[in-house]
């Protein structure tokens, strides 16, 4: 029987080979056939989750909520010191330098990353900008967000801090951060589907020790992760509660 590994679609495109190598490592450790399923965007991945086609996932904080509470996934590990933070970005040469320069009707470029978008909107609240007052430009990727800003189509854009920090120097110099989140408590995590629950302790053990071998450390380095830390159900529940408080008011 083959299992499916999925990775949150917000990973950087140049990490794709790293995730394939991680998948190969995982198959060897668990001695199971595992297929890395690359989803083209969050909607496609959500459909796969709903269809119960995912067995192991490196999930973003927004999806962790649904996976743990609705689908019975079990938290296994989180990357060490790799919190998900959001940045509100503007064009370097533009007139927007602070939140106070933004009108409540600001044009905002965003991706489908709902955790980043929720945090981004919170960062704009002190300027009285709300989902109802703002206008949005939907973008396929963070590079598209950068292009929308550079081309003057958006006033500000929402980006994952990691993605902003990894932009090429050519793109980065055309942008400037306006405000960044400093939450420190929200992060991606590896979750295991309920059908593989009996593998939890084994998988956790392999992941926690992964950086202790040269091969494992190289794979982690290529993914930008120093090492994995254990993550228990209560930590996941706390993060889900936290994400819940950050969701737009219904």
């Amino acid at each position: 029987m083959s299992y499916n590994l999925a990775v949150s679609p917000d990973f950087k495109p140049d990490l794709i080979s790293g995730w394939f190598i991680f998948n190969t490592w995982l198959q060897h450790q668990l001695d199971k056939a595992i297929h890395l399923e690359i989803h083209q965007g969050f909607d496609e991945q959500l459909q796969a989750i709903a269809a119960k086609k995912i067995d192991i996932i490196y999930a973003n904080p927004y999806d962790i909520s649904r996976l743990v509470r609705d689908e019975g996934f079990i938290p296994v590990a989180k990357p060490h010191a790799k919190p998900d933070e959001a940045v509100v970005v503007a064009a370097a040469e533009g007139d927007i330098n602070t939140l106070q320069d933004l009108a409540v009707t600001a044009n905002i470029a965003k991706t489908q990353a709902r955790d980043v978008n929720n945090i981004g909107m919170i960062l704009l609240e002190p300027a009285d900008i709300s989902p109802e007052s703002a206008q949005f430009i939907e973008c396929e990727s963070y590079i598209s967000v950068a292009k929308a800003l550079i081309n003057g189509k958006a006033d500000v854009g929402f980006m994952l801090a990691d993605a902003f920090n990894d932009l090429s120097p050519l793109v980065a110099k055309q942008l400037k951060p306006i405000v960044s989140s400093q939450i420190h408590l929200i992060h991606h995590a590896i979750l295991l589907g309920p059908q593989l629950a009996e593998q939890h302790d084994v998988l956790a053990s392999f992941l926690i020790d992964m950086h202790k071998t040269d091969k494992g450390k190289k794979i982690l380095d290529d993914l930008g992760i120093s090492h994995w830390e254990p993550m228990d159900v209560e930590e996941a529940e706390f993060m889900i509660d936290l994400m819940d408080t950050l969701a737009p008011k219904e």
Partner: protein
Amino acid sequence: MKDMQKDDIVGDYDEQSQTFSDGSSRQVFITQEETAFPAGCLIVSQTDVNGTITAANDSFITMSGYSREEIIGSPHAILRHPDMPAAAFADLWQTLQAGNKWYGYVKNLRKDGGYYWVYATAIPNVRDGVVKGFTSVRREPSKTKTAECKKLYSEMLN
């Protein structure tokens, strides 16, 4: 709850007596010194079902002015500013006890007598169908909303 200590207060202050819904009271010393909310930060805390603080992040410690040792085990009402109407907190508890999320603009009292405004969200922590406590997240509020609430709360108190 312990009275505030004059030695902790920074600047000129007014003395007031606060009375809580359980009938207890506390002497507080308040100044007009506002501490600006640090951009991008969130103040996060957890309490047990009785409102006793069980966890707080670094932003909570910085903004409240208390040490972690002082905060953990204290009632969340230690932050209650006398300019906040009791009705706001009654609404908070009724909303949480009904299992719902509460939102509101709150003026919090610092250990040094100063204050800071927040936009607060609180939710019940439901584990296996049972409310085990509450999580509260405070973020930088809109200055427009803060001004509106300042006026509203003042009217509610008078």
